[in-house]
């Protein structure tokens, strides 16, 4: 369940905050549904992702990685914290999901977004899987 954890954390709700909240939901939904098109529209050209297995992949490799069916079920996000730092933003969140063996599990991620030509694009993701 998405929670607006920014409230009460000292981060004011702004129009940018709402946009970033939507983008964060889109990111998780697109992992869940293998929506490569969404990532193609919203990742910066120089995007880098640190995977849970310790690999670091560039944009093209990340898009290939997203294309197959998501390896976990019931992927959801909670404890989302959105911090806007000028024309950059950092999103921290906790993921919950079900492993292929049926066990419930949780992870965490940190995404960095920057405003480029008036649009927020994701420049970095780092994923921990529990």
């Amino acid at each position, binding site marked *: 369940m998405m929670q607006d954890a920014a409230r009460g954390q000292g981060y004011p709700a702004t129009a940018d905050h709402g946009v970033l909240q939507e983008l964060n939901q889109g990111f998780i939904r697109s992992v869940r549904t293998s929506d490569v098109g969404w990532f193609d529209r919203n990742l910066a050209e120089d995007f880098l992702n640190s995977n849970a*297995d310790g690999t*670091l992949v560039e944009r093209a490799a990340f898009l290939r990685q997203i294309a197959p069916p998501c390896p976990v079920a019931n992927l959801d996000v909670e404890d989302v914290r959105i911090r806007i730092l000028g*024309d*950059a933003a950092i999103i921290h969140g906790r993921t919950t999901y079900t492993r292929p063996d049926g066990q419930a599990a949780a992870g965490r991620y940190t995404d*960095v977004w920057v405003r480029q030509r008036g649009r927020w694009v994701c420049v970095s993701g780092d994923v921990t899987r529990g």
Partner: protein
Amino acid sequence: MHEATHDGARAKDLEILEGLNRNYVRSAEQSDVRWYTENLAEDFLASSVDGSIVDRTAFLARIARPYPGSNLKAVAVRIRFCGELALIHAGFEYRKPDGQMGSGRYTDVYARRQGRWLCVAAHFNRF
């Protein structure tokens, strides 16, 4: 000329961030709380391998404890600038207490505030 000045400033920033990254790693192994006190932003948040997220105060308390290993070093360090932020992507290697080698990866985010680079976020995995 302006471009040359810009390139010079960027090279200087890169040198500063390389130093900050070296000291971040050194201070983790040496439990150097003072270095972190001086170089973490007040709103710093760290996402850890156990899935927790901790603020500056809790992170400093964690750093004060002895590092669970030795010979910690960063590898494959990539530093890039995104506006007023700098992102450091790197792997790390260390020797576990049982003598085995361990590794991990981290992403640190620095922001320039009042002319200084301060770390505002860290995310790390250990394998």
